[in-house]
């Protein structure tokens, strides 16, 4: 498995992560430390709203023109907002890199934030929220789970923001947030794949005048150790009641993280996973069961779910799910399997320049080390059963459990 990178600094004080690899394309990514954790009550979701507005035109490009130009190149583009970051990307043939950098520089240095576009886009974001959350029982349950697990830290609120905050967004707040966070010191570039030799020169040429410091963020509140199980039940129009379990887990750079990834694979990965075998196949209590880890910088969220099978009681499923999750034990065979699963996932993501860039970018953003994902793989290869079991008992226990149960109406 091959992974190598180079880190450079531009004259305008941005870091550039270069990951040359054989590919028909180059993935150009701009990472900004502007995620929902940097917001405050009243403006939750502003990072995501800003991401939308970045497609609404800059000094030299009209609304959506940027997107249209990339499509004409046959390229892929988009952006996404998360808890710790906003990432903009283009996957394009290398000969288009200059034009892409030119367009990106225009919107990062000279965005328009047109007031009428702003009002229209706010409506679009409300529709997006309805699609993902208000109109989806699973989205709603996920939002509730985050709020239950994170009580002090800003991971408490949803990335897309609370409905009333979205309705109240105003342009001034958005511009202020942009000026504070979209600075060269607070952002970095990732280039992965077939990188043209003059890539750095192009960045200097177009982003050269970009100015701004890294904002002095106040320390964020820490979660206190949970002292007992928390629970939330909601009634919704569902035919198949379901349950989510969530546990506070350490952040992406923490030494426990690779060990938790092993536990995740054992419990949730594939049809041979314990949850699938026990709850779906053996007991027939669930039609679906699984889970995963939301990796984030300060903490992660370890979650599990089960969707009740026809005619099966949701409480019985909840009990069985909880029991499986909190029963710490591991066999050599399971450890071997988890290792190979992580290896296969890593090889598979390294086949694509875009995913390689994302993996390296996460390591750099959170841990100041682009090779974190490779180090995690190494740690997983060396992990010992007793250490994993200790980690399991410490993180996944009844005292630290958060349960969200969605039952049908009436």
């Amino acid at each position: 498995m091959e992974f190598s990178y180079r880190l450079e600094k531009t004259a305008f004080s941005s870091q550039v992560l270069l990951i040359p690899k054989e590919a028909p394309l180059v993935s150009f990514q701009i990472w900004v430390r502007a995620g929902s954790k940097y917001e405050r009550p009243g403006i939750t979701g502003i990072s995501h709203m800003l991401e939308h507005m970045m497609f609404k035109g800059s000094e030299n490009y009209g609304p959506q023109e940027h997107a249209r130009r990339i499509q004409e190149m046959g390229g892929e583009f988009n952006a996404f907002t998360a808890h710790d970051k906003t990432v903009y990307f283009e996957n394009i043939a290398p000969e288009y890199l200059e034009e892409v950098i030119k367009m990106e520089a225009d919107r990062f240095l000279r965005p328009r934030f047109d007031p009428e576009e702003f009002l229209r886009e706010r409506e679009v974001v409300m529709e997006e929220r309805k699609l993902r959350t208000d109109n989806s029982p699973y989205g709603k349950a996920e939002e509730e789970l985050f709020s239950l697990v994170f009580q002090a830290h800003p991971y408490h609120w949803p990335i897309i923001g609370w409905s009333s905050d979205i309705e109240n967004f105003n342009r001034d707040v958005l511009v202020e947030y942009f000026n504070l966070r979209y600075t060269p010191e607070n952002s970095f570039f990732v280039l992965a794949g077939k990188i043209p030799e003059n890539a750095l020169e192009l960045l200097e040429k177009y982003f050269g005048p970009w100015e701004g410091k890294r904002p002095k963020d106040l320390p964020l509140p820490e979660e206190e150790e949970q002292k007992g199980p928390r629970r939330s039940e909601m009634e919704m129009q569902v035919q198949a009641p379901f349950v989510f379990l969530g546990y506070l887990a350490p952040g992406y750079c923490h030494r426990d993280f690779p060990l938790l990834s092993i536990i995740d694979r054992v419990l949730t990965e594939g049809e041979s996973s314990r949850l699938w075998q026990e709850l779906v196949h053996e007991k027939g209590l669930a039609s679906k069961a699984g889970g995963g880890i939301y990796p984030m910088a300060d903490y992660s969220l370890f979650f599990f779910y089960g969707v009740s099978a026809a005619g099966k009681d949701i409480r019985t499923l909840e009990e069985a799910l909880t029991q499986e999750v909190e029963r710490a034990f591991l066999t050599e065979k399971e450890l071997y399997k988890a290792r190979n699963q992580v290896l296969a996932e890593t090889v598979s993501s390294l086949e694509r320049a875009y995913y390689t860039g994302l993996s390296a970018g996460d390591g750099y953003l959170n841990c100041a080390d682009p090779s974190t994902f490779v180090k995690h793989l190494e740690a997983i290869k060396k992990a010992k059963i007793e250490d994993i079991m200790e980690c399991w008992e410490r993180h996944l226990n009844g005292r630290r459990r958060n349960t969200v149960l969605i039952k049908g109406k009436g």
Partner: protein
Amino acid sequence: MMFERKFFQRNGARIAVHPRKGESFSMRLITLGGKAEDPEGMEGLTALAASLILHGCMGRPYSRIVESLESTGTSLYFSAGLESAQASFWALRDFAEEGLAILRDCLSHPDFPPEELEKEKNRAISELRRIWDEPEEAASRIFAGKIFPSHPYSRLETPSSLSRIGRENLERRMEELFLASSTFIALAGEESLVERALELVLDALKEGKRAFDIPSPQPGPARHYFHLKEDAEQVQIRMGHPSFPRNFPYYEEALLMNYILGGGGFSSRLMERIRAKEGLTYSIRSSFSPMLRAGLFSITTFTRPENTARTIEAIVDEVRRMVREGVREEEVEKAKSYYIGHFPLSLETTSQVSSLLSSMLFYELGEDYPERFLSKIRGLTARQINPVIARVLFPENLVTVVVGNEQALKQLEKMGEVEQVLNEGGK
């Protein structure tokens, strides 16, 4: 040639290989025969047979089979479409052979243990119930069931059709599938491994060839279907009609037209009108999904309940305008530019290449298809595309499916007759 590939036939099966050095190996196997052939009253048979292939073979139980595959990070899935059944295989190079041996054993000697059949049937019935909880999935299911009126392509599995399926039905169905001369295999990976993979896979195929005798569906009249979700804050909308098959000689013309209409993201007319200009949705797209005997034209979007009628009217208006006015040369140039630029970028991984090669084989597109496709796209103009539009878009035959609340229903009723669709629970 854009990428290296070889085509040949062995034991009757048609094979395409993309030799590539690297750590992964990918294979796709497609065989003629799909869900559209399920006997009436036994819908779900082919899909169930496909999903049960790994649930026990040569005396090995399901749990051991999936354990063996997943222990090496290998993924293997059997699935069924309307016209074909498929196997998708991906493995790390060093573990591929182990996984392929399992594929061979299970494909050639599936046990279909009765208790596994019962479990999978129950799970499928539970899934049918769950689908109605997610408005997006509910809308897509209704659409699939209504789009080809009175045609096998729109017959869906139900709890009662699933409950009728017995082990002997699965065994009989398997006899008809994966016959060598009706099977297509695409492989991407190291050459020595490709050879070994072919030995194993060909060993699992039965001799013989089969026909696929399903008549092509025709567009029916425009109709409105509605499913009530009382607490829905958003309305899911699907619109479409039957369309051309994959061997349609004007496929590329239709592809470019659709890019302009609703396939081209922010460049499309639907996105420009419904999202950018009128702010009615976050996303709207249209697509053609051509198959062997038929195809499907579909539009997918969502909006607020109070905007249901306005959104549907705006969509119909844009489709009519496309038929009436056609496309403009500058729009065609942009669409061409997208496909010409995008095609080479979409062949980065072994899975992407094996997927393209398997479609080339199944739809008999020819060995030089990638080059011919691009060369045809390069040469197209608005003058060539416009005469094709009325042959592929039928605005007066659009079937509309809406999932939403009472307010959405009232809006839909103003537009004409509405047929309400209930879920399996009678709601």
